[in-house]
């Protein structure tokens, strides 16, 4: 089967600031280094009808990756294919059909909605660009789209500033659905929504997938949601894919040490690994030049190795990759009895 989307060795950097002062400062510091890429060596695929979750902490490059797939930003290296055809080119040079088939729901709904245009306009425009509907048919479709995200028909005449945060997010989702795409890039689309609306939207996304075979790249930080919705999970740390695998593989130890930390940080889960969280804020997010990017925060680092050599990509299984110096059995050993093991292993005491 040809994957719907195939991303291979993609590297994306934001251009350094070009202002005279910035250039002078760099020259004075004799800083000729290239900017640190926001995403490096990213390779993964999405099959038709599949949900791939992209997780990782703030600033890890999730949005950047999604933006490049949408054609909003150019990768410097690597390739991207959609149904086998090369799409490594900016959005204004993509054919209309492709624009329809890759829809992007932004992290911040305010940025996909024009504050001065009613919901009627935003939804209508998407329909007009891709479909030729008129009169009653067009009206009905708009009402249907609003209903699918659980908004009353009356919302059609609202301006975006008149919507609550969650309502604006739902309008943005409806707008993406209007194009009837093959792939929807969902950037934190649920985080502005409370659990009951979340539940309903998740249900909707699943139903839609069952009936239309749409695929999702689902950026999220709520691992409970990820576990429930995704088929596969890609974990990003500092622009690098540190682990990817099926949902079962990701949520069952042995994990990549960073994934273990993520699983441990879920709020409301009581004890978290404070040792790793409470560390000096200045080290957070600053990757060392050599070796493993996670090394400064890793509890299981191997001294003399991890800070020197780039970790290898280990294949725990044909579908499961881990970027780490520790072998699967080493990781299994150190993660036994850790709380990460407890989260994902046996059911909690009272449930037995």
């Amino acid at each position, binding site marked *: 089967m040809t994957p719907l989307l195939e991303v291979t060795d993609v590297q994306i950097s934001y251009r350094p600031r070009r202002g005279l002062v910035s250039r002078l400062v760099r020259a004075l510091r004799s800083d000729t280094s290239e900017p640190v890429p926001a995403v490096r060596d990213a390779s993964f695929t999405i099959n038709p009808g599949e949900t791939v979750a992209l997780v990782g902490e703030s600033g890890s490059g999730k949005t950047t990756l999604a933006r490049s797939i949408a054609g909003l930003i150019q990768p410097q290296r690597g390739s991207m294919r959609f149904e086998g055809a090369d799409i490594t080119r900016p959005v204004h040079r993509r054919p209309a059909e492709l624009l329809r088939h890759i829809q992007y729901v932004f992290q911040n709904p305010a940025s996909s909605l024009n504050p001065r245009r009613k919901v009627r306009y935003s939804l209508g425009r998407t329909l007009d660009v891709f479909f030729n509907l008129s009169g009653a048919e067009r009206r009905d479709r708009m009402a249907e789209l609003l209903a699918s995200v659980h908004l009353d028909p009356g919302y059609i005449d609202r301006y975006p500033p008149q919507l609550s945060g969650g309502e604006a997010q739902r309008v943005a989702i409806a707008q993406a659905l209007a194009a009837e795409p093959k792939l929807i890039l969902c950037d934190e689309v649920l985080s502005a929504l409370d659990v009951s*609306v979340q539940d309903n939207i998740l249900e909707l996304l699943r139903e839609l997938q069952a009936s239309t075979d749409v695929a999702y790249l689902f950026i999220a930080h709520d691992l409970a949601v990820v576990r429930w919705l995704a088929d596969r999970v890609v974990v990003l740390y500092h622009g690098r894919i540190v682990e990817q695998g099926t949902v079962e593989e990701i949520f069952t130890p042995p994990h990549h040490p960073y994934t273990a930390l993520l699983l441990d940080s879920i709020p409301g889960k009581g004890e978290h690994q404070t040792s790793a969280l409470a560390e000096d804020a200045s080290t957070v997010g600053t990757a060392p030049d050599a070796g493993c990017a996670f090394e400064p925060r890793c509890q299981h680092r191997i001294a003399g190795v991890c800070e020197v050599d780039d970790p290898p990509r280990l294949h725990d299984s044909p579908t499961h990759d881990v970027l780490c110096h520790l072998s699967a059995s080493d990781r299994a050993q150190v993660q036994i009895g850790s709380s990460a093991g407890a989260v994902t292993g046996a059911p909690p005491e009272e449930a037995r």
Partner: protein
Amino acid sequence: MAAGTMTPAPAGDAATGGPAANGGEPLVRVDDLTVDYRNDDQWVSVVKDVSFSIGRGETLGLAGESGCGKTTTALAMFGYNKAGSRVAGGRVTFDGRDLLGLSDRQMQPIRGARISLVPQNPASTLTPSMKVGRQVVETLEGHGVSSGGDAMDRTVELFGQVGLPEPAEIARRYPHQLSGGQQQRVVIAIAIACRPDLIVLDEPTTALDVTTQARLLDLLTHIKDESGMSALYVSHNLGVLEQICDRVAVMYAGELIEIAPTAELFNRPRHPYTRGLIAAVPRVEAEHAGTEKLRGLLRRDDLPDGCGFAPRCPYSRPQCFTDPQRLDEIEPSHEVACWRAPDLEAEAAP
């Protein structure tokens, strides 16, 4: 003087008087706040007769479904009204002063210095054309906290505290050069810069991943413990509220329907809506459990005269649709707006 401006607390209102631990006068007291929005030339109340208080050093959580009125309540309290809205009734007392009676000019020194706000959409509050470090410096200078090089040093320190990587470098960036979560942390840094008495946080961690969120919650707890700051924390994430709040208030369709100390609310939720909300929280541990899940969603276009939750409530009786429900103390510090709450507890014994 402060006490003189207060309406005497009605009997049985002990819980809204703030946590017993701190005693004395609460920092904030909201009485019967009603807020309207204009829709097609008529005013509709989206927040109805909401009353609660926040004690000194206390963190009150505000939970509820999308569109139920959390943001509207939080904003109206401090005169940050959204366009097309009006406060139709009620009173907000902050440290003994009636806030809603103040003019914009009188509010000016209070906003930012004594009460600060982290809005739901933080990106919108940053000035796109100004470097983010400069924006914090201006806040510090504007309120006379510090100036010049001191203000810049303090800014970098604040950025470090909220977990921004390479704080000095980030300070030189424009907002669009930051990720969503980074922008949000800049806004939080601005909000805590002047060490306010009260910080109002509207979904402050929703754009953040779990590790950054955990770090920020630790930071907020730390600042609170150190400076005695009070907080109103609006969130739909019950796990977060459970972790950070002393008490939690739950809203439904513009009304407050339950308020209780955090542990009490999570262990013994009494209102059927609160129970559904807690049951709906997705858990990593378990398969998506659908036991007492909420049915349907809030529809504002068909609210009954009685209990707003009646159309979705698994326990409703005919009179629920006609008799309005008011918050009632069913246990010390625990108030519920459901006349059936006392018998429901018996029914739900596990």
